[in-house]
Structures are given as C-alpha cells and as structure tokens.
C-alpha cells in the first residue's frame, strides 16, 4: 500500500496496530517481526502498553523528522506545523503522565531528559554512550527491547535536537513569520543584553539549530520570549561567571 521499499517497517507497524485490538486471531501473527522472544514475558495488558509505548516512540520520531525536514527554501505550512507540534506536546504529556504515574522506569531516562524544561545543557543521561548502560537497571518484566529501541531512536536523532527540543520545536514553527511581523516592535533584548558580549555572538551561540535554518539576521533570531529559558539562562550564567572570573584575573 505505501512505500514498498519499507515494507518490513509497515508490517511491524500494522502488527502494532493490529495487536492493539483485542482480537484473538490477530495475536497469532505476533512474535514474527520485531516482537521476538518476549512473548513469553508478557501478559495481556502490558503487551498493549508496550505497543502504546512503541507507537508513541515511533510517532515521536516521525514528528521530529518532519519538523526538522522543513528548513530553508520552502515556506512551511503553518497548519501542518501547528498540528505536528500539538502532537509532540501530546506525546510529551503522555510521557510525563507515565513518568509520574509509575515509579519504575518504564520510561527511558533519555526521554524524560528531553522533556524537563530545567534541563542542563549537557544532561548526563542524554549522551548516546550512556544510553546503553541504562538497560540493566530496567526491571526484567519490561524487556530489553524498550531500552534497545530507545537508544536506537536516540541515535537517529541528532544530539543538538535532543538538547534544544522544545526550543527547536517552537523556533521552527512560528518564529520565521513572527520576527517579520513584529520586526521593529517586540524585540526584547533584556535577556540577551550582557555588557561585555556583542549581542550577535551571544545569540549565535545559543541557537545551534537556528543557525542552520535562517540567514544571519540578528532580529530573526531574537524572539521576544522563550518558554524554557533554563538552558539559555544556564549558558548566560556561564558567560557571566566567565566574565566575572576574567575581571578578577585582569584586575589582579
């Protein structure tokens, strides 16, 4: 039906969707592709939860892919962006409710790092090397596939995207139009103004993704406000500390 070259992927997917339905006949098709040997581990309800997680992971990956593929040249459809971002938000809420609901790490540690707004620039768990080390701590009920699939998923996402998840999401969606709309009105540079640093440099260092998206107009890269100023502020703080240290060194 769709994309013959990726037939295997779709049959995985359709088995996912088929398994979600409580049809006994369809369960016979399980365990063939991608489900592997954990049939023995799982009982009914957790199997559908597994599929929910798998689907969520898949949709998350697709969403990020779609958002990132729209870069220079083509003017993206606002409706499409809004729908994609709302889907991402829904997945985010789903993940967060999962995280708060279950004490055991049903959720991959790297995913929760993605979502926390106060995350640090380099979250120790976010780097790819640590992803594999997470599989042992997971309880044996939930098979290694969860951990295996997630690091695989992580590897497919560029590291920069992980770090600036929500920022990138919002940046890609709306700001290209926003900046032009309020081009001379809403520039709030209070967050960026540091006495020593040139504003262009500070802006440039804070937006690893934005640099590739737009041409180098400062105005475009300065939205009036940011939702998650966490990493931004931490970087600013780093810079301020650096300046402070420099001052001390110079004075001494």
């Amino acid at each position: 039906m769709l994309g013959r070259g990726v037939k295997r992927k779709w049959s995985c997917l359709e088995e996912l969707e088929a398994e979600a339905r409580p049809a006994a006949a369809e369960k016979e098709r399980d365990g063939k592709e991608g489900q592997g040997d954990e049939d023995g581990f799982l009982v009914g309800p957790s199997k559908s939860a597994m599929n929910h997680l798998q689907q969520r992971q898949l949709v998350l990956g697709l969403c990020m892919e779609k958002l990132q593929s729209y870069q220079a040249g083509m003017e993206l459809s606002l409706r499409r962006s809004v729908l994609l971002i709302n889907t991402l938000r829904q997945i985010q809420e789903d993940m967060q409710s999962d995280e708060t609901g279950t004490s055991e790490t049903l959720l991959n540690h790297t995913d929760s790092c993605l979502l926390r707004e106060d995350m640090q620039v380099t979250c120790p768990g976010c780097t790819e090397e640590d992803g594999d080390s997470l599989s042992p701590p997971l309880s044996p009920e939930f098979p290694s596939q969860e951990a295996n699939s997630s690091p695989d998923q992580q590897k497919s996402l560029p590291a920069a995207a992980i770090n600036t998840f929500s920022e990138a999401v919002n940046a890609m969606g709306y700001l290209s139009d926003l900046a032009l709309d309020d081009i001379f009105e809403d520039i709030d540079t209070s967050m960026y103004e540091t006495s020593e640093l040139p504003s262009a440099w500070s802006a440039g260092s804070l937006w690893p993704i934005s640099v590739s998206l737009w041409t180098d107009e400062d105005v475009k890269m300065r939205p009036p406000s940011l939702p998650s100023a966490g990493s931004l502020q931490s970087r600013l703080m780093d810079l301020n500390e650096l300046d402070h240290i420099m001052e001390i060194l110079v004075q001494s």
Partner: protein
Amino acid sequence: MGGGENMGQLAQPCRRQKMQQDHLDVDPLFIRFLRTFKEVLKFVLFSYTVLFEPAADPGQLRSRARYRDTLSESLTMAGAGGGNSDVQWCFSQVKGAIDDDVAEADIISTVEFNHSGELLATGDKGGRVVIFQQEPESKNQPQCRGEYNVYSTFQSHEPEFDYLKSLEIEEKINKIRWLPQKNAAQFLLSTNDKTIKLWKISERDKRPEGYNLKEEDGRYRDLNTVTTLRVPVFRPMDLMVEASPRRVFSNAHTYHINSISVNSDCETYLSADDLRINLWNLEINDRSFNIVDIKPTNMEELTEVITAAEFHPNQCNTFVYSSSKGTIRLCDMRASALCDQHAKQFEEPEDPNNRSFFSEIISSISDVKFSHSGRYMMTRDYLSVKIWDLNMESRPVETYQVHEYLRSKLCSLYENDCIFDKFECCWNGNDSVVMTGSYNNFFRMFDRGYRQDVTLEASRENSKPRSVLKPRKVSTGGKRKKDEISVDSLDFNKKILHTAWHPLDNIIAVATTNNLYIFQEKLN
C-alpha cells in the same frame, strides 16, 4: 370483485351456483360487503408498502418521514436525488492530459461552478484558470445536457519572490469564487497564498469598423487620403472571450490565504488566512478590515489555526470559520468590529474510545460549506462529513463516515503525510445530497433523505461516453468479495480533493490530480 363475480354470475350462472354452496346460511349482501372490504383493505396495504417502505423499527420510519418532509419543502428544482438507488451517474467528459506523467503545473487545485451552472472554472498549480462553458441543449438530444467546452483560459497568478523571507510565493490558485452575474460580463475572484484578484470575463462578438484616421489593421492613415468622413459601424466577428484583471487585492495577509467568500450583499467579500480574516469591498483594493484575529501575542502559545471561512448565503452579517482543532465559530459582524468573540461555537465532544495520538490531526476541519438554504452547514474532517444545524452547537445532526477503514492506518498515513490532505465537500442544488472525495480516485455521495451512500470512481477505464458508473466498495473484513478492493491496494497518490455540484442539475465535476471529470445523471 363483487362486480366481476356478478357479471360472471350473469354470464355463467352455473359457476355462481357452485360458490353459493360454499357459503351456507350467510346473508349474500353481507358477503358482498366483506369481499369489497377485503379488496379495499388490500389496496390500502399495497399503497402503504409502496409509499412508505416500512422500516424494521418504527423509529427509523419516523425519521425517514421527517426527512421527507424537510426535503419536500426544498424540492423545487430538478435534480432531486443523487445518492439513492434511483439516480445513476454516467460519464460525460474528461478534461486534461491522458498520460500518467503528471506535470506539476497541471495539478488542479480548485473547481467551482458559477451561480447558473453554465460556467465551470478550474484553477491549477501553475496559476492558470480555465473556464468551461456548457453548450446549450441541442434539439437533437433534448434529454442530454450540454457538454462543457473551453470558454476561456488565462494566467491568473504568477510566481513571486518574497525578498524579505527569501521565499517563493506559489502561484497555485487556492480558491475561485464567482460573483453573481449583474450584466453581460462574468466576474470571479481567484486567490493564491497572498494575493486576490478580481477578473472580468467578457465576450466580444462585434467590432467597430470604418475609422477615419486608422486602417483596419491599426496603422494610421495618411491624412491626405482622407477625403470623406464616415461613421464607424459595428460588424460581427468571431466570438472572443477576454479576461482582464479589474482589481488586485494584495499585501493584506502575512500567512497563507486558504479561503475567500463573497457576501450575499455582493459588495463585500472575506479572505481568510491561517490566523486572520479580512473583509474587503470589491471596489476598494487598497484597504481591508480585519474582522478576526486569532494570533496570540506570544507565538509559542499558538495551538490553533483557521482552516476555512464562509459567509452565510442569505444573512450578510454572518460568517463562520473552522479551525484545526475541529471547532467552528459563527460570528455576527453587527456585534463588534473585531469578531474575536464568536456568537456560536460548534464542537462535538471527542469520543474517548477513538482517542489516539492522531485524534487532533484527524479532527482538523478542511472545509466548511453552508447549505443553499442557509439552515445547515457541512464540515469535512479527515475521516467524516458532519452536517450541523445552525441552531444546535453541541453536536452535528448528521455524521457520515467517508473512509472509516483508514482509522486503523492512521500511523502509516501520518508517515506518508496523507493525514494532512485537505478534502473539500459540496452540497447538491436542493441540499439533499452531499459529496466529498477520497483516495484511489474514489468519491462518495451521501443522500441525507434516503440515508444511502454510494462510492464511485473517476478513472479512464470507466470513461466511455454515457457509460453508467458502477458503485465501488472497499472491503474491510478479512474476506474480500469479488469486485471489492482491499484497503491495502488503495492508491494514496490518487486523491480527489476537489469536487463541485451544478447548482440546478445533477451534473458534477470531480478533479483527480490533473484531470477533470464531468458526470451527469443518467436520463432515459
């Protein structure tokens, strides 16, 4: 019958003798009464079955009767049905290239009949508008409605470049709307993502001849050769159709225009983009009024965009706009200059059983159309068509599933972007049937009165003149019957997004990717 038997009695007295022996001691007058009564009762029961098609349960019967009553009010024109078993559709014409290799510029992006149905306009991705005109019915074939032939072709929009954003503005025609005809010329509005243009289409079948200062080919005459003066006269010429842009309405939209709608006052029209709706006067192209603005001050809070908007067909102060979250807002321009506060909000509560990651995307409304009467409006979301009574905001009065079999395939459709396709929908002339498109070049019609629906296909295989279209069926279960097509065999690249119904007759125009099909009701 009593009479017949009596006659028979006179002709063949012996027969009556035999029958009388069967009925002992009963008054013959009473017998005759009983027989007459039996015949009368038979007649009544027969009429009942013919007229009322008794349903299995009385509830269905009542609802059918109610629909019949409401329909009969509006059944003034020809073209009563469409989706019921009485009406059959047959192929009439197909326009466009035959080969499968589709040129990007030829992709049809909008289809619209004018108010009389005589003209049919299409817009394509290359910015061109093609207008077809219906031939007058010929005396040879009075039953066959006229064919549509090319009347005028012109380039409406050209690609532009936005230097500020370093982006191209597509010349694709998003919508065409006809103005009601006021004089000999026809007017239509066509729009791309940023600019709306008012076009005048006029016929010229006479030209002046006999100028004193110019030759017929336009060269100026040598004044020495002019000895007498004459009055120029009009002489007939071959019909020429000219399209000229009368107004250009630009620089009013930051985002992409998705709808235009002419007001019933014929003086104003609205244009809607993703976040704003503007009101224009047809005569004034350098000013427009902003009547709806849903842009949040902080763009990161944006969660909803406008997807379609339309003026009420009769009330010039009322319009509706639909959103990507599945809500429709009805606004009254008399209430305030900026209609951010809606007068009514139509929204159906979500079915918790069907909740998934794609619930919001498939609830996004892609088209909204008022009925001709103005009492109902129809919305199209990804999987269904809903009909709303303007007096009831809580839920639609009717819901029709277009391709419910796709619900289990939403993840795949999300991956290949088909889930973002925007299907349009349309009403027939008397609001009894609605039509919308689907995949695999299928389109669906729903008869509201008879509660029937049909799936038809627009394809070159069924394109013999006046060949009747066979209803198609998609098999959903495991067992596939003959002539059915399975969901996995559907071609998702062949989508019918744009359809139009003649305002007075049962003639429909269905656009596949680059072809325009015209189907007519089968007439005997």
